């Protein structure tokens, strides 16, 4: 029996600072122990930066909450050492089906090609992800976690941030170099700084009902427009672990959120959907609305905002938690390099330059989905229904059906940290792209490319066995690891071998082609030859020098 994370109580320990009169110093304080705060804390700790994580509560997320965790999040957690456990506990899926009435109108496959370590998505209750990240954080000596400790004041200064924290035993103050606010959509830290987040609220309400039932259905995302069991609305069905299913019903703006979450209202909706012959038990339900919002800037001096605190989207693309995890991975290495003196503080501006456009992209997708689900005018509804009607028999219209465009890794295309291409390349691995995985062999064992990238700068040289540079490169004190990808097994020590040719193809590589990857596994430069000077210049650029 696996641990029931939903009822885990996180320990409160009376902090020693309550008995001190001076103000203790911490390099980094992270506020909020959700998936984003835990990820940024673990990532920082693994780079070697001590981090204090504080949360006002002593419980993990209540109810299932976020359930769809994307391939990119799993790859980030792989780098942190907990991707395998999370993937193994979740339900892997990649196929989505969209119905209009009771007819299938559109089917999509989010990962149609083989040769990736991680699936397109796993479904897993948010509290389980948080629980596994929490357990992993316990094993990192550089992390201290404090629960039932509420930040009640934030005083930013030029050289740091003073934070006042309230506990059941009184308040104390800490001084930190950087404060990372992962404290959710109603971010108290944002409010303390007098900052706001702006955007569009959608006038619609949705019911989530998580039910436990035994159904032998494939693990797919199934979405209905105007189904017979829920006329005039949309509905969604997702499989979670432990025979729990996520059901989502569009209710309309006029629905009463208090009334609609009463079991006597919820049960008939579920019954209509699952049929008369299935036993089910209601696990959790909630009525929600959503807004697409973002802060104008994610960096405010020494305070950095990540996840829902910085940006908000609708749930119909799984872009909330997943984009927050990408924020975390983007920020952690930069904070570490700056704190260690390997990069100027201005490197942190690139966190905003990269993640603000990523948030815009997520909001754009989310807004388009919301406009399809919740048409704002009669004509908008007419076009939506026209698309759905045509989709049955017209392949082109299926591509217009939008029940949510699901989260994929953001390409940081316009980042100042990228070195623009000097040589000609084809394919998706442009500077700014998150590294694509590929099956490789290492020490004659099956392995994955992504397991060898990240945590430091890596210069990966594709080779045919001759003239490969496998020794580490030291540039301005920054260690860059040089790795070799051979087309076939040969004598190059420690080389990766692309036995199936997938890595060469995905990276449009020829012998000599060299890619430079950042610590967060994003491509930041590439060349057709191995050039130490060019690599040095690209690393300097990617670290804000």
């Amino acid at each position, binding site marked *: 029996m696996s641990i029931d994370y939903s009822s885990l109580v996180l320990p409160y320990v009376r902090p020693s600072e309550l008995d001190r009169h001076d103000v203790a110093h911490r390099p980094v304080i992270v506020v909020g122990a959700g998936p984003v705060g835990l990820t940024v804390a673990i990532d920082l700790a693994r780079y070697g930066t001590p981090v204090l994580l504080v949360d006002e509560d002593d419980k993990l997320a209540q109810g299932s909450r976020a359930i769809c965790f994307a391939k990119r999040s799993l790859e980030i957690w792989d780098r942190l050492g907990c991707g395998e456990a999370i993937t193994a506990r979740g339900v892997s899926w990649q196929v989505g089906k969209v119905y209009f009435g009771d007819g299938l109108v559109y089917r999509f496959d989010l990962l149609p090609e083989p040769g990736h370590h991680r699936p397109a998505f796993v479904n897993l209750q948010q509290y389980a992800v948080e629980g596994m990240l929490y357990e992993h954080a316990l094993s990192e000596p550089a992390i201290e976690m404090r629960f039932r400790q509420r930040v009640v004041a934030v005083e930013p200064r030029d050289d740091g941030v003073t934070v006042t924290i309230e506990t059941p035993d009184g308040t104390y103050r800490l001084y930190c170099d950087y404060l990372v606010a992962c404290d959710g959509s109603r971010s108290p830290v944002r409010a303390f700084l007098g900052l706001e987040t702006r955007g569009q609220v959608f006038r619609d309400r949705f019911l989530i009902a998580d039910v436990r039932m035994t159904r032998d259905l494939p693990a797919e995302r199934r979405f209905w427009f105007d189904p017979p069991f829920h006329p005039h609305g949309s509905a969604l069905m997702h499989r979670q672990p432990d025979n729990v299913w996520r059901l989502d019903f569009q209710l309309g703006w006029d629905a009463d959120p208090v009334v609609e979450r009463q079991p006597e209202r919820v049960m008939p909706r579920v019954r209509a959907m699952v049929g008369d012959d299935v036993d089910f038990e209601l696990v959790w339900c909630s009525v929600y609305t959503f807004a697409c919002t973002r802060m104008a800037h994610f960096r405010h001096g020494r305070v950095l905002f990540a996840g829902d605190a910085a940006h908000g989207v609708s749930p119909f693309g799984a872009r909330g938690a997943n984009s927050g995890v990408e924020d975390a991975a983007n920020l952690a290495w930069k904070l570490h390099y700056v704190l260690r003196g390997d990069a100027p503080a201005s490197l942190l501006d690139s966190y905003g330059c990269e993640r603000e456009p990523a948030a815009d992209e997520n909001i754009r997708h989310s807004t388009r989905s919301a406009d399809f689900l919740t048409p704002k005018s009669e004509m908008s509804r007419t*076009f939506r*229904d*026209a698309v759905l009607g045509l989709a049955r028999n017209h392949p082109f219209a299926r591509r*217009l059906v939008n029940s949510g465009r699901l989260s994929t890794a953001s390409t940081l295309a316009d980042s100042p940290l990228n070195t623009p291409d000097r040589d000609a390349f084809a394919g998706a691995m442009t500077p700014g792209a998150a590294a694509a995985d590929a099956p490789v062999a290492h020490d004659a064992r099956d392995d994955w490319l992504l397991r060898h990238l990240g945590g430091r700068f890596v210069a990966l040289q594709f080779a045919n066995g001759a003239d490969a540079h496998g020794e580490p490169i030291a540039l301005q004190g920054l260690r860059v690891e040089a790795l070799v990808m051979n087309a076939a097994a040969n004598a190059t020590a420690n080389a990766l071998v692309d036995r199936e040719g997938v890595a060469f193809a995905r990276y449009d590589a020829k012998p000599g082609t060299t890619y430079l990857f950042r610590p967060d596994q994003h491509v930041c430069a590439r060349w057709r030859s191995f050039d130490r000077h060019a690599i040095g210049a690209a690393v300097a650029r990617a670290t804000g020098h």
Partner: protein
Amino acid sequence: MLNIEPNLSAPDDFYEALIDMHRGLDDKQSAMVNARLILLLANHVGDLDVLREAMARARADVVPSG
């Protein structure tokens, strides 16, 4: 580039067919048929720049009443 020069091989036949398409329909049904027609034609055109130009021309001179 949107072609605004004459391009219809039989303009009067086209116009008659367009009006006939709506025969016997109420306004709501007509709106649906128009929407489907726009979608079908847009896919046939394919080029988003051309479609945007057509949309801009269609909306030009129409002032929102709100």
